[in-house]
């Protein structure tokens, strides 16, 4: 390492003093702002010992919150993935007017406060909303029930899979698929044997990020769920409830589960990045594909 380094000419900021200062400052602030919260969650969760921690996790309300969170993810994430694939296929494999606009609309949920998303759903399915009277007449419950939680989660995560796939499939072009179909493969066969193998890591990358967000979503879900303990409380909402009940250990025990999921997500993300998914050079992908497509079409 030392030798390899000494062969290269020193670059800007390579002097030992600058290097040491910058690394120290960055690590110090990083430890205070990012690492400390992570440690405090563990410390608080186990502050009264393993037994209290285990009892807090095993509490029926907590177990129910875990179950509800998992069920929400099991429904919202696959639907979202199907949407992401469909959106990427239509936008990258065909030219139709309004593609740019469609891309911008898909990205909208990223810019919107989760509270605004929740309120917006209230005005569609709530009693005061567009479909409220109709749903009431047929006694269909969407708000303050599982469907509302799923819909709100689908809103906040709508762009996750699509935005990983679109830049990738844009870069891969259409040649392989066109070759496959001209050789007589059906559309589905082309997708499963030609397209899918090329996009699977990027797709998984999007799915993992989407899942983490669905399981952790707080603002939008807190508006539409009604926070009914043991019924419509997802894990993040349950944390809030316990915290405001001064059951700090219970709140942090529940939080430690979500923290574990976040850490697993990060590890999976790093592993997938080694396989080329979510490459950093595509990182400003929030909007970059729009302008790329604009250049290609103009």
């Amino acid at each position, binding site marked *: 390492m030392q030798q390899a380094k000494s062969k290269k000419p020193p670059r800007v900021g390579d002097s030992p003093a600058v290097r040491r200062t910058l690394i120290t400052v960055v690590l110090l602030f990083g430890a205070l702002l990012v690492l400390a919260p992570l440690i405090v969650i563990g410390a608080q969760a186990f502050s009264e010992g393993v037994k209290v921690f285990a009892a807090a996790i095993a509490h029926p309300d907590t177990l129910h919150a875990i179950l509800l969170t998992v069920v929400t993810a099991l429904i919202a994430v696959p639907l979202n993935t199907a949407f992401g694939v469909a959106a990427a296929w*239509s936008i990258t494999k065909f030219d139709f007017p309004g593609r740019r606009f469609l891309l*911008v609309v898909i990205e909208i*949920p990223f810019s*919107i406060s989760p509270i605004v998303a929740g309120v917006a759903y209230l005005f569609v399915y709530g009693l005061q909303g567009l479909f409220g009277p109709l749903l009431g007449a047929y006694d269909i419950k969407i708000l303050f029930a599982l469907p509302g939680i799923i819909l709100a989660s689908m809103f906040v995560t709508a762009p996750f899979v699509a935005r990983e796939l679109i830049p990738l499939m844009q870069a891969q072009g259409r040649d392989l698929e066109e070759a496959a179909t001209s050789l007589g493969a059906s559309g589905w066969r082309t997708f499963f044997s030609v397209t899918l193998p090329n996009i699977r890591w990027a797709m998984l990358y999007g799915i993992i*990020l989407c899942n983490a967000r669905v399981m952790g979503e707080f603002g939008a879900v807190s508006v539409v769920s009604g926070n009914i303990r043991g019924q419509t409380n997802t894990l993040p909402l349950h944390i809030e409830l316990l915290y405001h009940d001064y059951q700090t250990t219970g709140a942090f025990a529940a939080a430690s589960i979500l923290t574990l999921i976040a850490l697993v997500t990060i590890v999976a993300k790093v592993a997938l990045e080694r396989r080329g998914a979510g490459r950093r050079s595509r990182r*400003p992908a929030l*909007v970059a594909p729009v302008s790329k497509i604009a250049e290609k079409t103009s």
Partner: protein
Amino acid sequence: MKRNVLPGLPLSLGVTLFYVGLIVVLPLAALVFKAASLGPQDYWAIISSPRAVASYRVTALSALAATVFNLFFGLALAWVLTRYRFPGWRFVDALVDLPFALPTAVAGIALTALFANNGWFGSLLAPLGIKVAYTPIGIMIAMCFTSLPFIVRTVQPVLEDLDPALEEAAQSLGGSDWAIFRKVILPLLTPALLAGLSLSFARSLGEFGAIIFIAGNKPMETEITALLVFIRLEEYDYQAAAAIASVLLITAFAMLALTNLLQARALRYTIRN
């Protein structure tokens, strides 16, 4: 024009439009419709009420402070992660994404536990007379946490792709490190920095979960706009909730347009170079 031989346009586009329409466009349209049904006078009275204006002020100022902090810290972090190799850099690089992966409610209670008067940091700061939890500083720290990755992750790829020849040329002309950074490197980073700044600011304006635990939520002082919307809902004042939410929505669209512009420019800039 070449005839497109690929199948699946009606199905994929149909699914896409149905999903986007049902999940994204319909709710937002319903919100706008609800806010618009108020009439200009009532609408203005709600969104310009002293409590609403106070919430805009505390939200915008905290978001601004958090974004400025992240400008320096994020830039330094991106620089250290691309330029230097030290034991554990991979760990630090992965940890940058924690604020994105960690649910906001979890971040909120963790930061509150740290900065409350009896917390690890709060107990150190209290004798100095600095109160963080339940003050606007707490709001700012929560925003710093949740928006940290934006600037790092927009600047990092540009820094990685920077041509060393540019620096070498400047060095051979006798420029000091600081002069080269300021006059050669910083201008190249500016488009990405601006895009990161606007993403970070927009995220801070809309943040809810991480803030409400640490903010104290006192009306006129530490009440953010997103929380005011929530409170109006709990009071069954749906019209006020719709009106104030529409202010957040309009701001979000303005920030989205700005980010679009900045990123398009950043991309053109990098392609040209």
